[in-house]
């Protein structure tokens, strides 16, 4: 147990550093960079035109479809991670069984993929 914690202590240090360093740098930058008072500099850039409407609109559902398909497949991939380290386990029977199970699993995954493909969920709509 302590081994795992030991390996993640540096991660924690890096995490803290990763948040502190940019913030500290930005504080320094704020001190040394010039300020101008022009108001229009604060408007969003839109090729020199005045922006029309809000950028945060109801966006095309297409992007969400990709996300949903992704969630399904990525979770399935996650299930495979523990399997890879143990499937050559103790004896031949165990190995055979685990391989058969995983082949079935991947097949189901693949059928799901084919379904999504047929349904056009992965098709970029025009």
């Amino acid at each position: 147990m302590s081994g795992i914690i030991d390996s993640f202590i540096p991660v924690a240090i890096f995490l803290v550093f990763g948040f502190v360093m940019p913030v500290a740098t930005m504080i320094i930058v704020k001190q040394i960079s010039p300020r101008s008072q022009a108001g229009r500099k604060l408007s969003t850039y839109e090729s020199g035109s005045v922006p029309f409407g809000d950028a945060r609109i109801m966006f095309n559902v297409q992007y969400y479809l990709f996300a949903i398909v992704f969630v399904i497949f990525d979770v399935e991939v996650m299930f495979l991670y523990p399997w890879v380290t143990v499937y050559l386990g103790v004896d031949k029977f165990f190995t055979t069984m685990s391989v058969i199970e995983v082949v079935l699993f991947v097949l189901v995954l693949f059928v799901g993929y084919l379904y999504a493909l047929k349904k056009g969920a992965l098709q970029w709509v025009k």
Partner: protein
Amino acid sequence: MDYIQLAFDLLGNPWIRGVVGLIVVGVIFFSAIVMVWLERKFLGDIQTRPGPNRVGGRFGLLQLVADAIKLFTKEDIVPENADKPVHAGGPIVALTSAFLMAVAVPYGVVSFEGSEYLLAVTTMDISALYVEAVAAVSIIALFMAGWGSNNKYSLLGAFRNIARMLGYEVPLGLAVLSVAVMAQSLDFVQIVSRQEQLAWFIFMQPLGFIVFGVALLADLGRIPFDQIEAEEELIAGVFTEYSSMRWGFAFFAEYLHAIVGACLVVILFLGGWSGLPFLGTLFIPPVLWFVGKVFVVIMVMIWIRGALPRVRIDQVTDLGWKVLFPYSLINLVWAAAVAMVVS
């Protein structure tokens, strides 16, 4: 000699190793600077122009220093209707994600008085999974940047980023998985030592290497896949509204990701820090092997950037879902079969 021994012992303590490991941040920052310089120079060569040649002598060695000074002294502008915390958070999260990736990457081994010491900030038994997980955080970082800016170009870029990255995370994960199947471990150190026993995994599963390489390029957003920053379409994509060092962080995060990505390619497929077998008698320290291979991978990335036009976003998602995903599944089955035969 005892001092060195003592130093190694001290580095066994995770706290000390973590703090000392911050040097790695400096090192990869420096290598990012080198990579930017290399990219400009090498791209210049490809495009028959000199590249940077004004600051720092004929080779423009100090160009990046000049750029950094410029970024530091530029005004930091946040658009008035931006979501300020999200806008500020984007580059920071991207940078942090790059740092967290760098933690788990081992850079080689050092032999000292008969025993071998690993050059890595931390070792963990699931480092492959861990690196992939923290790498995926950068998707959120880019989306934060795009959404927070309240700029239409940025938002389009952010959505493109999501659509693209999602398509490539799965093949990328499956490619890492195939390596793990062969190595019987998710630990980078184990993966490298397994390659020393067998052969480099690029020879064992070339398909996996191709899938991983393409997916990695897409994840990094380098040129055939740089739709989120496609200049002629979206100005600077998600980073349109960034200026000063805020933009600098985003820029650096991109290059840090590229370097760590190159390290991953080397560790997973090119045998890590192990030398070429037929050069066995030639003594080159493992770290140099590692650095050399990373260098080669980076040069190939730059070369690809010089040689290819940009792919359209729908073609990108098509490639991810309809080509790479089935191939990565095939490769997984292949890898599992080979692993069973080998063991």
